[in-house]
């Protein structure tokens, strides 16, 4: 008999007319790992929360379905019964380790509380059990540091603590809701390996929810694919990957950025170079405001970029890559030289920079915060033209904006709409249109794909490649995702703790990485 059996589950929010989950059925056997894969909004997390019956009853209704755990019906089970299950028979790991822990309590206390709550062990044994758990999740260093507070731990360590809490009472089922999305790539692979290891050692069944199909290829026994609230395909992982039946699954599997950037003539001029660029933030100040020590976000980076070329700046979060991009566009104060077409621009005043602004543009990571919600698309995209082409009439500007929108794959009819009416991918296209319309020579792209679903990533990468060929614009492509970088960049620089540790043509880096760090990044990205 299956450990967990979800049959014909439908779920509807009271504020909407359409059910968000429609007739979903799947089951998990004892000790098995099932991966529930889908893009954002496909209803996968909502399904997981209904297994735990964590939806507030007044906001959702279940038109149909049953959830059997060990043969017992959970649908409509009483609160007391569910509380007995939660944390004891079913453990849960959430996406965001930063907020899943209470910042005011020590980690030792938080883990002990889970055990104490369910009285699975006598009080005397709890400290020993907590240490044992920390060891199991690979936090040996913390066995003697039970009094550490969450803020003293890194993101990966926190996620391990959350996992320790989830398995504290030897549950039968572990639900992991996007456990790696908030983490860096190398950490993500470690966490996934840990979950897999625990599944094998402790015989826990795991429901792994993720949007990254690639991630589960090696670890899950079976996968279930969700699209718009429906389960479109499920089966053994190997079979699904080798013979995907549903078109959406095929689409997802094919959604790996493909291809290579088109070569740039070798004699292209260098349009941008930095020399020993530094951005140091004062970390500690003396009483009189003099900086005593610095956080070296960017510490002496020298790079150059040719016309029409794409340079991938690769590193994990906190490595200083975004700060470097901002400094390059003179949006962040810095020291050292920045040369644009041979002209020193690092010491220019902001007002003198205005003509230059037209030539270096910026596309931000989060398309939801980079567009002013109060302006319509025509005004957003046309803003640069109003500054740099004051000679254009309103109608002329409108025509230019419309043709730019067409170029990035949007329609003219969208001119009057506002950002909230667009999806993430469309918003990122708008942001690209806004940058491109002033005809820049260089665009700094700060993780433009990382907030998007995989299939959208592929489209944006292709769009960027097409636009580069057409407009001969150079890209500084900042990313932690080497798959995207490989499909788009001619050259790569790996940055770590503010310093470039490895650089060279893309092919060379991918074929023969020299640094261990680079190797780890590549291994994480191409999960083999």
């Amino acid at each position, binding site marked *: 008999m299956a450990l967990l059996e979800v049959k014909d589950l439908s779920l509807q929010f009271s*504020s909407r007319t359409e059910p968000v989950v429609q007739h979903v059925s799947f089951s998990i056997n004892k000790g098995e790992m099932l991966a529930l894969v889908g893009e954002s909004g496909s209803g996968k997390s909502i399904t997981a929360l209904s297994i735990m019956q964590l939806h507030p009853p007044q906001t959702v209704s279940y038109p149909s379905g049953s959830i059997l755990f060990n043969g017992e019906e959970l649908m409509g089970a009483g609160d007391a019964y569910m509380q007995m299950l939660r944390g004891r028979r079913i453990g849960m790991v959430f996406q965001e380790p930063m907020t899943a822990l209470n910042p005011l309590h020590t980690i030792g206390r938080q883990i002990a509380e889970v055990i104490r709550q369910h009285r699975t062990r006598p009080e005397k044994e709890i400290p020993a059990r907590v240490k044992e758990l920390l060891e199991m999740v690979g936090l040996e260093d913390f066995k003697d540091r039970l009094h550490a507070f969450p803020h003293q731990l890194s993101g990966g360590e926190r996620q391990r603590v959350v996992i320790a809490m989830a398995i504290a009472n030897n549950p039968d089922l572990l639900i992991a809701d996007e456990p790696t999305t908030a983490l860096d790539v190398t950490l993500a692979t470690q966490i996934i390996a840990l979950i897999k290891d625990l599944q094998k050692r402790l015989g826990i069944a795991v429901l792994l929810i993720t949007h990254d199909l690639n991630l589960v290829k090696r670890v899950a026994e079976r996968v279930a694919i969700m699209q718009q609230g429906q389960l479109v395909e499920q089966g053994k992982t190997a079979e699904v990957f080798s013979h995907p039946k549903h078109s959406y699954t095929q689409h997802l599997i094919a959604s790996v950025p493909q291809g290579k950037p088109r070569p740039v003539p070798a004699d292209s001029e260098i349009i941008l170079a930095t020399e020993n660029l530094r951005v140091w933030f004062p970390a500690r100040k003396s009483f009189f405001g003099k900086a005593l020590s610095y956080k070296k976000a960017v510490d002496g980076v020298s790079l150059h970029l040719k016309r029409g070329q794409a340079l991938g700046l690769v590193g994990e979060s906190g490595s200083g890559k975004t700060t470097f991009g*901002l400094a390059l*566009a003179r*949006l962040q104060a810095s020291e050292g030289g920045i040369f644009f077409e041979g002209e020193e621009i690092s010491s220019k005043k*902001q007002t003198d*920079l*205005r*003509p*230059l*602004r*037209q030539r*270096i*543009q*910026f596309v*931000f990571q*989060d398309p939801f*915060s*980079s*567009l*002013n*919600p*109060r*302006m*319509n698309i025509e005004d957003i995209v046309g*803003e*640069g033209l*109003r*500054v*740099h082409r004051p000679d254009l009439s309103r109608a002329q500007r409108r025509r230019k904006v419309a043709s730019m929108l067409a170029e990035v794959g949007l329609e003219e009819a969208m001119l*009057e*709409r*506002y950002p*909230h*009416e667009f999806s993430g991918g469309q918003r990122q296209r708008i*942001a690209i249109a*806004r*940058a491109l319309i*002033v005809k820049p020579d260089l665009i700094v792209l700060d993780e433009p794909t990382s907030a998007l679903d995989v299939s959208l990533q592929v489209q944006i990468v292709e769009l960027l490649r097409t636009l580069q060929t057409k407009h001969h614009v150079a890209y500084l492509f900042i990313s932690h995702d080497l798959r995207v970088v490989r499909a788009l960049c001619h050259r790569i620089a790996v940055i770590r703790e503010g310093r470039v540790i490895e650089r060279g043509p893309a092919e060379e880096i991918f074929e023969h990485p020299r640094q261990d760090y680079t190797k780890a990044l590549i291994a994480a990205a191409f999960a083999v």
Partner: protein
Amino acid sequence: MRNESGAATKTSFFSPLMQRRLASFRANRRGWWSLCLFGLLLALTLPAEFIANDKPIVLSYKGQLYFPVFTAYPETTFDGDFETETMYDDPYIIKNIQEHGWMVMPPIPYHYDSINFDIPRAPSPPTSNNLLGVDDQGRDVVARLIYGFRISVLFALTLTFFASLIGIMAGAIQGYFGGWTDLLFQRFIEIWSGLPILYLLIILSSIVKPTFWWLLGLLLLFSWMDLVGVVRAEFLRARNFDYVRAARALGVPEFTILFRHVMPNAFVAALTFLPFILNGAVTTLTSLDFLGFGLPMGDPSLGELLAQGKNNPTAPWLGITGFVILAVLLSLLIFIGEAVRDALDPRKTFQEFR
């Protein structure tokens, strides 16, 4: 829902965000009705001269039209004896006018300072003539209420307008320039807001003769600080928004960025506070009047009505009237304020659109 708002975009003057807020405001029935009622009261009291006055709105005498509300006519115009302004309640004049024409009196035939000499004593209880009675100087309470309400609300609106103007500018300067400007300004505000306002007003109003504009100026000195904090915070926050950075990367001049991208956020934050500031202004004026340091003697005001109620416990219609009208006015403003705050709350506005 999405499509509806999208379709409306093309025709409406407001951005969809604002439309959603308006809809959310209207959905709050208590706030919406409060606004309607407040609007009605304001509409009724603004033309107070036509509602409660001891002069006719219009009269015809010997074939000629006169408008005593706007112009003062000497009594000789209507064949009276004196060169002074006509007393339209004089039986001799009334008889004269009715013989040679007609006149239209306002529904309440008393000005706020006209004294009713027909009553046995003052204060006197409500009658069919004086609906809410007469105060201790023989003046009709309804007439004084209408004028008092108007002056309270007008005073509060003017004060709020200027206080917001100064407050938003001060907050914008602090938030925008930051650094030392911000630091010094903040310390100044801390000291300034530590001053005992009421004492200061009492002392100042004993030096100068308080008038409407004097009081406004004095209160303005202290009431502009309410908004500085929020506006400053909005500016500090918005400086690092991605779309502000994007505009900077486009080379949009700082001043334009300020007005196009940052200011609207600050306005929304400020708007949330306005009804409460309005409330505060009404209360301050009333308490000053109550203490006798407010508007000049004889001017109609809610605070003065309350003071009369206190001084004449045997005439409960004075105190009760003052209390009820003040309670209603303040409650209406609070209800409107709550509805505005909820409508502008981003978490609430976006909830349905998730």
